[in-house]
């Protein structure tokens, strides 16, 4: 698989869109998942993931084949999402004014249990309490098992800055969890089960 991927990468660097299409097929889930965790919305995540792959395709000339492609790609995704969150903060648009976009419905089908949606909502609320950079560091650490060094490389930070961000983020997440548990709706549920459900 590694050899095949190296071949696709070499072809993509020389501008072959079909080879890059195979890379899109391979990495669509990690990139989409990172965008969704960062932005908290399926439609925004779809747009962001598409943009990330376009940016990556246009920057393939600058990609060093000796480096990990997933780290490089997720670094582009994290930076793109951080920029999107900053832009979103600057322009507050009422949801009614947003243009309708024809995107395939990303919601899970009825065969997928309801708990998946509940998981996602709970995680989205928790991650929403973090700054974009802290969110990026947490997502990379827990969903992609990136080392401190990899997170530092992806987010253009020092290793000590990553450690400090993760530490602060964990504290914020724990406090948010306690707060959510003390919410009457969640508290009612908690009599029988964990606040995760």
């Amino acid at each position, binding site marked *: 698989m590694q050899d095949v991927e190296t071949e696709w990468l070499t072809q993509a660097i020389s501008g072959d869109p079909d080879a890059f299409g195979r890379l899109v097929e391979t990495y669509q889930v990690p990139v989409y998942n990172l965008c969704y965790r960062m932005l908290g919305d399926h439609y925004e*995540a779809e747009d962001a993931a598409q943009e990330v792959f376009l940016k990556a395709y246009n920057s393939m000339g600058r990609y060093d084949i000796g480096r990990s492609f997933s780290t490089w790609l997720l670094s582009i995704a994290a930076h793109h999402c951080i920029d999107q969150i900053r832009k979103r903060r600057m322009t507050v648009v009422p949801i009614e004014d947003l243009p309708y976009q024809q995107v395939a419905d*990303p919601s899970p089908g009825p065969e997928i249990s309801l708990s998946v949606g509940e998981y996602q909502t709970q*995680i989205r609320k928790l991650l929403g309490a973090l700054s974009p950079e802290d969110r990026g560091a947490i997502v990379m650490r827990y969903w992609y098992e990136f080392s401190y060094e990899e997170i530092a490389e992806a987010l253009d930070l020092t290793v000590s800055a990553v450690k400090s961000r993760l530490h602060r983020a*964990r*504290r914020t997440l724990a406090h948010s969890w306690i707060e959510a548990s003390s919410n009457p709706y969640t508290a009612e549920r908690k009599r029988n089960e964990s606040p*995760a459900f």
Partner: protein
Amino acid sequence: MNHQLFEDWLFSEDPLSPDQVQALEDHLKTCDSCRQLSVAWSEVETLFVSAPPAMPAAGFTARWKAHWRFQLADKNHKRQQKQTWAIFGVTTLGTILLFMLMFGQFRSAIDTPTDLFLFWVTWMTSLLSYANAVQDVSLTLLRTLLSVLPLSYWVVSLSALCALSLLWIFSLRHFYFRGGLFNEADD
């Protein structure tokens, strides 16, 4: 009581020494707020680790390819627009310069409407006589060449010229519509 130190240990991934682990356990037995934080973080961590990845809707790669083609077409369109504007700008600038030069000569030659008329008549006459001279020379040259060179030479030369012209047209077409050809190949 120093909660800060225990909180740091709770949220740090650095390994703790056996003494530190013992001190933390002892502290958690007596401190409600730190225990609450410890339980909360462990539940959050479990939630993160057990959460399935968010999946894109089916057909993501096909949508990306469509997006890429649209961006490529847009880029080509913008480049063409830029080239058109550049050609238009250069032509306009050239025309303005030419008019300025002509106006300079014109001004020095003309003082009255009669002078202006005479100037134009002289200019047009000299232009026509130049054209006539060029035509005479060309015809003489052509007649001489026709009588000197054999017919086969003309057939070969014209065929080569046609082939070169076709090659030039196809090269232009290939470079100009490179994106389009690329797309066709991709489909």
